[in-house]
């Protein structure tokens, strides 16, 4: 059953755009275009990622853009495939041309096995792209110091990972995500590794500004139903965060009273 969009008194502002939905989505790994479009629609996502690749002249790929643009989704091209800053900058410029947007998800993973982001090349590319007028959303490991450097470099948000791409392992980096969220002056979007709606809800309860989910939705048994579950989880997590979660109770170690001296005299 579909439910209403979140009230817009809790909007997420990133650079020049305002979002009502805090669930960002990817377009990869769906079994077919029709399922992808249906799933994204149900997710109520307002920002969707895509990659760029050289056209195969023999076989034409589906045009994924038309249905997404028709749904009014904001496009976030990624630089996937880039192995260093130079390649990422080139990819970003291509994407700006192709999609007529200056938003870019900076993604540099030279390691093809685990697809972990390269921090050094990412910071280099982020600085260059931010200076060139891009709205940079860098995908990085959950490194609090790196995230502060990216913020200083002019990124519009940071996207620390919960676990390796596609692993569906959840928030393995939770302790570091907490630190990043505490220290950030820009939105923190947890990206990669979110395998279930409960992971997404947890990220939102912690104070993340948004989450980006792809694999978990695309390869689920029923991608459309799973997308709806994710949408609900992100809303629930955000609402819990705003409502003020009760912490866990830890009893203080009993020993001789430290403040008894105040009663004396």
């Amino acid at each position, binding site marked *: 059953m579909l439910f209403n969009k979140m009230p817009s008194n809790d909007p997420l502002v990133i650079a020049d755009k305002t979002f009502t939905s805090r669930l960002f989505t990817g377009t990869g790994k769906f079994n077919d275009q029709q399922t992808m479009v249906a799933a994204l629609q149900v997710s109520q996502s307002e920002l969707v990622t895509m990659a760029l690749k050289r056209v195969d002249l023999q076989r034409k790929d589906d045009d994924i853009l038309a249905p997404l643009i028709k749904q009014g989704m904001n496009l976030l091209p990624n630089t996937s495939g880039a192995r260093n800053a130079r390649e990422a900058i080139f990819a970003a410029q291509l994407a700006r041309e192709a999609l007529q947007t200056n938003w870019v998800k900076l993604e540099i993973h030279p390691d093809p096995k685990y697809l972990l982001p390269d921090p050094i090349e990412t910071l280099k590319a982020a600085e260059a792209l931010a200076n060139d007028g891009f709205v940079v959303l860098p995908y990085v490991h959950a490194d609090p110091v790196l995230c*502060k450097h990216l913020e200083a470099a002019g990124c519009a948000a940071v996207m620390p990972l919960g676990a390796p791409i596609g692993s569906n392992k959840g928030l393995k980096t939770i302790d570091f995500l*907490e630190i990043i969220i*505490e*220290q*950030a*002056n820009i939105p923190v979007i947890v990206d990669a590794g979110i395998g279930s709606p409960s992971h997404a809800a947890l990220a939102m309860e912690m104070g993340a500004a948004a989450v980006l989910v792809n694999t978990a939705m695309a390869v689920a048994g029923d991608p459309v139903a799973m997308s709806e579950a994710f949408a609900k989880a992100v809303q629930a997590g955000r609402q819990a965060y705003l409502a*003020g979660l*009760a*912490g*866990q*109770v*830890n009893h*203080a*170690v009993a*020993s001789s*009273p*430290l*403040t008894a*001296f*105040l009663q004396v005299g």
Partner: protein
Amino acid sequence: MSFSEQIKNYQWDDVGLSIYSKNANDVHRALSKVRLDLEDFKALISPAAEPFLEQMAQKSQQLTQQRFGKTMQFYIPLYLSNMCSNICTYCGFSMHNAIRRTTLDMEQVEQECLAIKKMGFAHILLVTGESERKVGVEYFKQVLPIIKKYFAHISIEVQPLDQHEYEVLIDYGVDAVLVYQETYNPVTYAQHHLKGKKSDFNYRLDTHDRLGKAGIHKMGLGCLIGLEEWRSDCFYVAAHLNYLEKKYWQSHYTISFPRLRPCEGGMEIKSVMEDKQLVQLICAFRLFNPEVELSLSTRESEHFRDHVLPLGITSVSAGSSTQPGGYAETSLKALEQFEISDERSPAEMANMIKAKGYEAVWKGWDHSLTGK
């Protein structure tokens, strides 16, 4: 963007109402969270937290030991000058107060350093009134090389300066700068700061932003407790700390808790803070920010310091004199800025700390770490 912009997000009266509206549930929640926010801080400094003081103290002690170990950093203030071109109603150095004014010359500075060194200190706090013309950057440039010969860590508490002036002083060896807003309420501020450059509320308020941009290693903030409703003013200190930490994330921070004391000129204190409330405030800061340095000076009594230091304090002064030339025996005595309550010598203080199972740290820093 600087704090004078950020502070517009808070309304003085709303802050006070908000603090007083906190209840036991709010305090429970604050006590059970690992990462507290400013609303939690309000709960912990509200009247509703008073019944929880022992619990706060236990947790504060535990957090402090986890972060700082069982140590206490010792420092000493050296008053270089009591010249001042401001009129501040509460201060012994106020321009209209008839006291003997003096500024130490380089020879006197050297003598003071020698006397202080004998007491064992490696961390020193240089203090002056606020007299830009006579005791300004040029004077500091002369003094700092002398101080640097003797001391590993130099803090200063002087008039607010421009960013490029701080950059110069940092090159000359200043590690930390302490500036207290006195009160974050601009109306009350105007009532107490009647003349001189200090009457510029916003310039003072933005000092820490200038320090952050200059790349200072450590900066200190606080309010003069008693000028205004202490709960509201201390909330603003916490909000200021929060803002600075997120923006100048490579700087260290320290909070002090100066409570108004009688001085020449005598004035009525608007909001009297009781001992148990100061304990509450110190613990609240520790719970709110487990990493910040908390400092307690010799303004507070022996009895109070003995019991409060282990609850959350990490830095103390000892054997202090608040008059220029107060350490070398041959110096003449001018009027002190405020009365000292804890007059114990550094050696006595170190023994007291040791008896409580703490180690007195004389040198906790070295310039070689900054490559200067």
